[in-house]
């Protein structure tokens, strides 16, 4: 495994506005384990505030986990200091959501995308040549070398961000909502680019998104997060076609239908999963705050199938099928 994380935790302290002096803990990431292989794409999905971006930042050690282990390329980085992290920085890179905020407006394109190579002591001429090769790779014309970010469109800027991430020849790439601010036609261009670069270079790609359609298109495996914990993971086609966890089912039920999805002919329709909620009405309520997460299973106040034990006992992530795991008391009980 190229990346293996276990029991990652990150809690933040925020001031309690009701008392002016107290503090709350936000359990942004609360005991998450993940693994990712070279050449594999793992999708991380969840509603806003579920901790998916924090998890992405933890995996790159942009933030320090409070607890847990983080093995990347055979070494544990969980407790490493900034200086010790330097070798990891070239190996693991990130593409951010906002292509406007993540590029320095004062740097020309070639300078911006090869800034990381300064750390390797490359001279300006060598960096320019590297930039030319990178622009080629992400499908931007060579005339872009000396332009500033403001001269590029959103999609082109996202291409620059990808070029910058690839400059240090990383093995692991984490993309946090890289296409959610882009128009449909541009989004497709960037998805195709990411996929082809990944195949070419055998990158391990963690793709963070709230868009189930994008995940289904791009990912080999998906992990579904709810309030700081992973509630279900497994092969993308399986999890997104036959979800086990009531939350995944609700998420799929709420997503707008694919406008072209053909109605399945009656003969080919798979038997519905015993817990399948998709026929029922959508999910009521909104995700609770991660400041005071519900006891037991964090989904139980919104779960239509909740039972008494769900409010007291947190369910563990356990096998729910070949290569699949889910954290729900109702799975495997046959009910």
């Amino acid at each position, binding site marked *: 495994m190229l990346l293996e994380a276990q029991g990652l935790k990150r809690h933040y302290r925020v001031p309690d506005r009701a008392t002016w002096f107290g503090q709350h803990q936000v359990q942004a990431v609360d005991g998450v384990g993940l693994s990712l292989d070279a050449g594999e794409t793992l999708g991380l999905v969840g*509603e*806003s505030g579920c901790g998916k971006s924090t998890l992405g930042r933890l995996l790159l050690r942009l933030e320090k986990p409070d607890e847990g282990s983080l093995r990347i390329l055979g070494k544990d980085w969980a407790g490493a200091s900034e200086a010790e992290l330097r070798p990891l920085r070239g190996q693991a890179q990130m593409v951010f959501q906002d292509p406007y905020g993540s590029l320095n407006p004062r740097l020309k394109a070639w300078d911006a995308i090869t800034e990381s190579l300064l750390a390797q002591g490359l001279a300006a001429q060598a960096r320019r040549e590297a930039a030319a090769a990178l622009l080629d790779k992400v499908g931007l014309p060579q005339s872009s070398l000396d332009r500033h970010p403001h001269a590029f*469109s959103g*999609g082109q800027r996202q291409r620059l961000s990808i070029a910058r991430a690839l400059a240090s020849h990383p093995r692991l790439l984490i993309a946090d909502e890289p296409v959610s601010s882009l*128009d*449909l*036609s*541009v*989004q*497709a*261009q960037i*998805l*195709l680019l990411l996929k082809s670069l990944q195949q070419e270079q055998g990158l391990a790609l963690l793709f963070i998104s*709230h*868009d*189930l*359609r*994008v995940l*289904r*298109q*791009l990912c080999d495996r998906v992990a579904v997060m709810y309030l700081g914990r992973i509630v279900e993971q497994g092969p993308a*086609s399986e999890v997104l076609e036959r979800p086990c966890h009531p939350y995944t089912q*609700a*998420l799929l*039920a*709420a*997503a*707008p*239908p*694919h*406008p*072209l*999805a053909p109605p399945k002919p009656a003969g080919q329709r798979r038997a519905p999963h015993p817990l399948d909620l998709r026929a029922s009405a*959508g*999910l*009521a309520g*909104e*995700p609770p705050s991660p400041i005071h997460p519900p006891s037991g299973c964090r989904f139980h106040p919104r779960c239509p199938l909740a039972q008494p034990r769900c409010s007291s006992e947190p369910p563990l992530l356990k096998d729910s099928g070949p290569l699949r795991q889910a954290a729900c008391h109702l799975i495997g009980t046959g009910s």
Partner: protein
Amino acid sequence: MPLLQAEGLSIAVPTAQGPALAVRGASFCLEAGQTLGLVGESGCGKSLTALSLMGLLPPGARLAGGSIRFDGRELAGLDEPAWEGLRGRELAMVFQDPAACLNPVMRIGEQVAEALRLHQGLAKAAAWDKAVGLLGQVGIPEPKLRASQYPHQFSGGMRQRAMIAMALSCQPRLLIADEPTTALDVTVQAQILDLLKQLQKELGLAILLITHDLGIVARAADRLAVMYAGRVVEQGRVREVLRAPAHPYTQALLDCLPGLGRPLRALQGQVPELWDMPRGCAFAPRCSRAGADCLAQDPPAQELALGRQAACLHLEAGHAA
């Protein structure tokens, strides 16, 4: 007769290169009780079109031509007092970002009541009671308590519900919803779309739903108008347009949609700049079906069937002109 009929709508906006047309002769219509989805990528002019229907064009932008008929009345060229009489009463709008549209230092109930006092002349107490009722109607639990809270105490979905309550307070006949669910999570998004649909049924509202998401249109709209570079390039019943698009741009948008397990086909190139519109069809430089004739002439919309139009010289297979 349709409730709303826009004909040849053109909107000029200032650009660095001088004034340019951001909307270039858009035509569409909307019946009472129906939802029209207006779809297009950013910069195609869909939001400007919506604002022009409310008489709310931003400073500098102006209506450069065309007519907007609402219930038989011409809206183009109305003066501000006349618009004020229509807004809120006949036409209402819900915006993308409810956090930015609510006054942060005013109780939610007061904000809803304000419209009622202004437009219906209700007394303070009566307006407040009606506001509480409206908040309940849009599915806000404990409306009495919630009405006396401030926007920061509301979640994104609840704020959007409050905005909808405000928009519907004076029983308008047309509701314009500009990306009403884009800022919300999918589970909340589904709730808001269901709410709009239910209110439409109860009140017989016409809804103009502006979105970039074809999935939302498929779920929530009856008819669909696709905009590209300031023109409506195709319109018709949602199901018909999505199942068998006539315009190559509509087809290309559908090819870009992820999630069906088929390979994506990206649309290459970019939308032309406003000040640099091609002489012919604006989509021709990116179009796989374009011929020499497309570069010479901007194709007019042709009627393919009743209520179905497309503006293209080389329609997709299966559509005879």
